């Protein structure tokens, strides 16, 4: 019986040490809730402002769809991923684009109100947001890498 007790103690000690070191929580980080309030910053540089507008727009669309903004970014990564996403969430590509577009327009308004961009730049961005396909916008941003 002493051997059984020793083996049980060794097994439990091993498991307890591993749990105490974080074994139960060693998993990929949870993505942020897109519906949670994120404070509007006034970053320097047009590219950083544009980034914040795009992220804010993605948050808005993700919140309405009940998904994370990361899932929307991955959806717009290619034709196949876009089709898969719209099929899984029961919406059309057009509806998804409209959600992101309305989020973009709202984010441009927020940026203008916060003084991050002036009225001329805001009008320019609204024009872009209304006309260009969202997938195309992401393509364009991707192609600007390195400039």
């Amino acid at each position: 019986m002493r051997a059984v007790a020793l083996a049980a103690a060794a097994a439990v000690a091993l498991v307890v040490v591993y749990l105490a070191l974080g074994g139960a929580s060693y998993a990929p980080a949870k993505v942020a809730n897109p519906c949670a309030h994120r404070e509007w910053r006034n970053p320097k540089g047009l590219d950083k402002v544009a980034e914040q507008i795009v992220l804010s727009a993605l948050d808005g669309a993700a919140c309405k769809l009940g998904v994370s903004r990361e899932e929307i970014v991955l959806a717009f990564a290619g034709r196949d991923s876009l089709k898969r996403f719209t099929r899984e969430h029961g919406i059309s590509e057009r509806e998804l684009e409209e959600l992101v577009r309305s989020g973009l327009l709202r984010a441009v308004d927020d940026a203008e109100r916060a003084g991050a961009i002036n009225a001329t730049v805001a009008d320019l961005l609204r024009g872009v947001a209304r006309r260009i396909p969202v997938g195309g916008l992401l393509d364009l941003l991707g192609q600007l890498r390195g400039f």
Partner: protein
Amino acid sequence: MPIALLGLSVGIVLADSSVVTIALPEILARYDVELATLAWVLTSFNLALALSALPAAFVARRRPAPVFGVGIVVFAAASLACALSPSFGGLVAGRVVQGVAGAAVVCAALDLLSHATGADASAARVWILAGIAGAALGPAAGGILTQLLGWESIFFVQAPVVLLGLLALRGVRAVPVPEPVERPHLGANAALLLISGALVAALFLLVILLINGWRLEPLAAGLVVTIMPLAAIAATRFGGAITPLWARAASGVLLIAGGLAALGWLPHAGAGWTVPPQLALGAGLGLALSALSTRALAGRSALAVHGGWTIAARHAGVVLGLLLLTPIFTTDLHRSEDNALAAGTAAVLDSRIPPLDKIGVARDILVAVDEAKDEARIPDVQEVVGEPDDPAYVDLASALQDQLDRAVTNSFSRAFLAAALLGLVALAPIVLGRREVGS
């Protein structure tokens, strides 16, 4: 000399249960089959061995020497057929023949060992130790051969080695004595089945985690998992002092369950974290398998038939473990893939790299993940992110690697925990039959 050669033959055959685990990615690349189909390289051998162990034992008890000789030759031929197989179907067929011939070799070897040592108890001791060493050393041997010479070398090398067993027949005069066959020890065999099912996680999943998950080279992974057989052999050697047998078996089961649960709750990715669980698993494996096999064989006639029961129980357990744990593992792998992609994308979006680069990097990662998925490997994050001199990119690569490690390690967690539970269930037949086991 005959005793060593007979032990070697048993060890080689039973090592085949797990020897190709490390070679699975290379076999996948060679034949281009689905992951679920690939598992048949392991399942086919274990299923054939489990199903043919008992019939082989009944034949072997009447004519052990010819059965052993034919088994050795067919096993060697099947090994060469596996190495040279032009198709995946041919490889699986070769593995089935290996399993059937292996059953004949292992069961007949027990009778021959009894004649060579002059005592059933000594024969059982050698046979059990050879079996434990073979099964536990399999992944390490397979890893070393795969990296140095390619996966086919596993089968090329074992053919001549197993043929050495034929030399044992020169020194053994087996005169079969017809004995009535007694009822098998149900408790010990049931516990062997459950423990073998649980050990699938240690002998197969751990190797896959090291090579496919954490990208260790087969040679390094082979060396890492050598800890387990070393601990098993030490426990078999020194655990004999633990009496009664049911207490030794129960101690082993508790250590196996603890080791598997610790693998299920690894606090970090890295081979070093697997060392303490492997020590527990190895010690548990040595204690439990030796105690239960001894009990299943002790004082029972005919020896070969009861050896056949233990082999059937152990390898049916391996098949059960593969059938139970593979779906859990593959389901969690898909779930973790989605979680890792989302966490990786968040890491890119929140990183300090230039905003306009983020979309491009996120897309590059997605392409790399898709390519890696097709080749059943983990993407190289550093290669995808690039810019090794820019601190922002270095931080991003490190964050992505961390998320990837977490996702991969996490995807094995539930399968290890399920295996720990399966192992704990083995306590029931051990404790319920403890009067019988301790007698």
